[in-house]
């Protein structure tokens, strides 16, 4: 286990290095950030001077070495716009995104699994087809459009929930969360729903496919022969077996959703890291872009590590083989 962890750590560091090089070259290609940031009436000589001060006039490799050296001291640069160390900035915005993503996943799971079971159980019924086809709707239409329609319907016409923003937050163990206040939950309802559409479609489909595959398996046939009711087989046996791959898949979706949150957060004015990164990209806030990417890569590394562990340890088929 020790050697395994060391190897993993090594892989992680190499990955971060490579990502930092790619992103450095990438933002360098986009162009001089000062030309986007500074007020149009700032004189050219001031821009040049600032360029020198920030080291942006140096050749790419020199800038990179400088960046790595300060990164080793834990300094990923200060946001050009927000006057905060970029890591601190990301940390301050992260809880908002995480709770949104978790809420979206929970909705997707709670709605998706029953619908998927239903669709799988009814096999070729037209309702089954309709469920899985309709689930695709949510992801084929662009998020910004669906989000605005949700706002028009649920906020403006029906007046059920606010149009956007984060609402009141409660602080638990030093972390702010909207999940514990009524206003927080009301503000979160629409963005979480919008965000749940992508995982919802995937979960419905995975559950449905899983049910259909397992229905053909020997243990289900055996259970049927024993006279156990189909509903009980579905919930007690099949569901337990297909849940594990779904949960592992959700690990991967979790990471993807953080990226997906960009548009949702923009339209619902949700102050998370998705809105932060898109705003930062728009104004070329380089230190934030770089820190964000390094952070997200680290997150994906950790997720894929955990997913690998879980798949290896809990693969249902392996367990089934052992059980029989």
């Amino acid at each position, binding site marked *: 286990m020790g050697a395994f962890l060391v190897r993993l750590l090594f892989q992680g560091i190499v990955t971060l290095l490579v990502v930092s090089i790619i992103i450095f070259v990438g933002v360098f290609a*986009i162009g001089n950030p000062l*030309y986007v*940031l500074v007020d149009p009436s*700032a*004189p050219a000589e001031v821009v040049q001077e*600032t360029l020198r001060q920030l080291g942006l006039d140096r050749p790419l490799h020199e800038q990179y070495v400088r960046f790595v050296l300060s990164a080793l001291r834990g300094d990923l640069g200060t946001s050009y716009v*927000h*006057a905060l160390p970029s890591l601190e900035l990301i940390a301050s915005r992260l809880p908002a995104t995480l709770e949104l993503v978790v809420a979206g996943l929970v909705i997707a799971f709670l709605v998706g699994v029953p619908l998927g079971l239903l669709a799988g159980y009814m096999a070729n019924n037209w309702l089954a087809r309709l469920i899985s086809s309709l689930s695709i709707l949510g992801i084929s239409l662009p998020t910004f459009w669906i989000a605005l329609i949700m706002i028009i319907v649920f906020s403006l016409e029906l007046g059920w929930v606010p149009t956007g923003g984060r609402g009141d937050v409660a602080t638990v163990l030093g972390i702010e969360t909207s999940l514990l206040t009524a206003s927080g939950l009301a503000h979160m309802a629409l963005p979480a729903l919008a965000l749940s559409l992508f995982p919802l479609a995937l979960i419905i489909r995975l559950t449905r496919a899983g049910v259909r595959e397992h229905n053909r398996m020997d243990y289900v046939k055996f259970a049927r022969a024993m006279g156990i009711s189909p509903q009980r087989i579905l919930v007690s046996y099949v569901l337990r077996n297909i849940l594990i791959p779904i949960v592992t898949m959700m690990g991967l979706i979790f990471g993807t959703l953080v990226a997906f949150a960009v548009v949702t957060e923009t*339209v619902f004015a949700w102050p998370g890291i998705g809105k932060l990164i898109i705003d930062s990209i*728009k104004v070329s806030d380089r230190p934030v872009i770089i820190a964000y990417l390094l952070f997200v890569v680290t997150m994906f590394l950790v997720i894929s590590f955990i997913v690998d562990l879980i798949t290896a340890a809990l693969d249902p088929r392996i367990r089934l083989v052992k059980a029989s």
Partner: protein
Amino acid sequence: MREDRQSKLKHLVAVAGLALMAIGVIPAQAAEITIATRSEMTMDPHFFWSTPNRAYNVQLYGSLVRLDERIRVQPMLAKSWELVDETTWDFQLDPEARFHNGEPVTAADVVASFDRALNLPNAAASYKGALRGVTGFEAVDQETVRFKTAKPNPALLHQIAQVAIIPAGVAGTARQADFISGKAAIGAGPYRFVEFKPGDRLVLERNDKYFGDQPKWDKVVFRVISDDAARVAALLGGDVEVIDYVPPVDVARLEADPNIAVHKGTTDRTMYLIPDTGRNQSPYVLGADGKPLVPNPMLDFRVRKAMAMAIDRQALVDRVMDGAGVPANQNVAPAVLGHAEGMPPLAFDLDQARNLLAEAGYADGFDLTIHCTNDRYVNDGRLCQAIGQMLARLGLRMTVEALPKAVMFPKIRDHQGDRTSLMMLSFGSGTSGDAGGALTHTIHSYAPDRGFGTWNIGHYSNAEIDALIEEAAATLDAEERGKVQSQAVKRAIEDLAVIPLFYTSVIVASRKGLEYQVHADQSTIADSVSKSE
């Protein structure tokens, strides 16, 4: 010690309030306002120089002088000023001015604030950019600050209006995070800091001890909603009371809504096109054979004239801007000093435009790409396409390239590269208060070593106009300066150095029952909101 006393006082007030309620006396309802704004704020007042940040700063921190809704200079922390000689200005501080912590505002605080604004490390958009030509500042006595300029500098007042004043103690020690937590967010403005949540909201409360006109609201919440449609929805849904940067397309619906009032006004900005007049071969001008066209047709005045005539400005304003704008005949807005009076409107006449083009030898047109931003100005991508259409009707084979400003600005502002052949841009006068900004940056020949022509993307060059611009920049007398500037504007437009499109509008919307005094530089100011009588 003082803080202690303050919190005790607050406690007392709260108890008194409770007591009042208990005996059935309802206190006057607290005046509270929530404003949804497009622009996020940088809490450190000396870190990021931009017009929206200046607007936040002046409400919370205050500055020596402030700019009013027409971008005119008004006294604030300085109650008066005088010219000692042509390059020396003395500012007399208002003896009543107090910081939020109760300390008086002194000359030392002003000097410390300007020092910090000039020397703050890591500031990418430094306030240094606002203080061009300012060579020094010092405290003459407790209540007098002296500024020195390199040359006679008529823009000085507008320049120092950009810089927020904070206590010298804070300026010397505060870290950026201290402004976000509120620990260092101490100023002398009409409102004081309550809470800041990055990306979400800034909450301010009335500064009861403000020395100037009393603030209008007990509590002000600025909510950041950057998406246009979401901001409008927030107002329609009643989540906020005021929104800035109303998309023109929604004005009709908002005006028809009985619960909503729309407040419009003109800005200091003009939208215009920049033809490439500086190169014999322009990168995005091609002949029918797909090869670069030499000479660049836009060097010919008749081609520029044809292009200017092919643009239906009224249609742009009516159909693309939904009426939010006024067709322009020059690049300096009417309310700005230096606007040239009596110039004829730029006529729309497609037939004559085609004749002119043919006369110049381009009856079959040529390939031309128009470049625009798509996330910088109101409707910029749509305007770009509409202009593409109009020039296509003239007979040019148009390509429309609308790019995010993060890509577009580095491309044009680095004068070494390709730049563009035809580009749409907008320029305002907020930082000079007259035509000077637009003239020195966009019309004067490109001369980086002297700080001229930074935004002269087409590299237009005319020595006589340059001389007029430089003369105006050193003329302290406003009337005289305005005359010279309007002469320069007139000459530049007669030669179509740039092709003006329209003057832009500022639109703010509120719930019914609220008034809003719009600002020409589009700042969003809480005290510009008032209850209707």
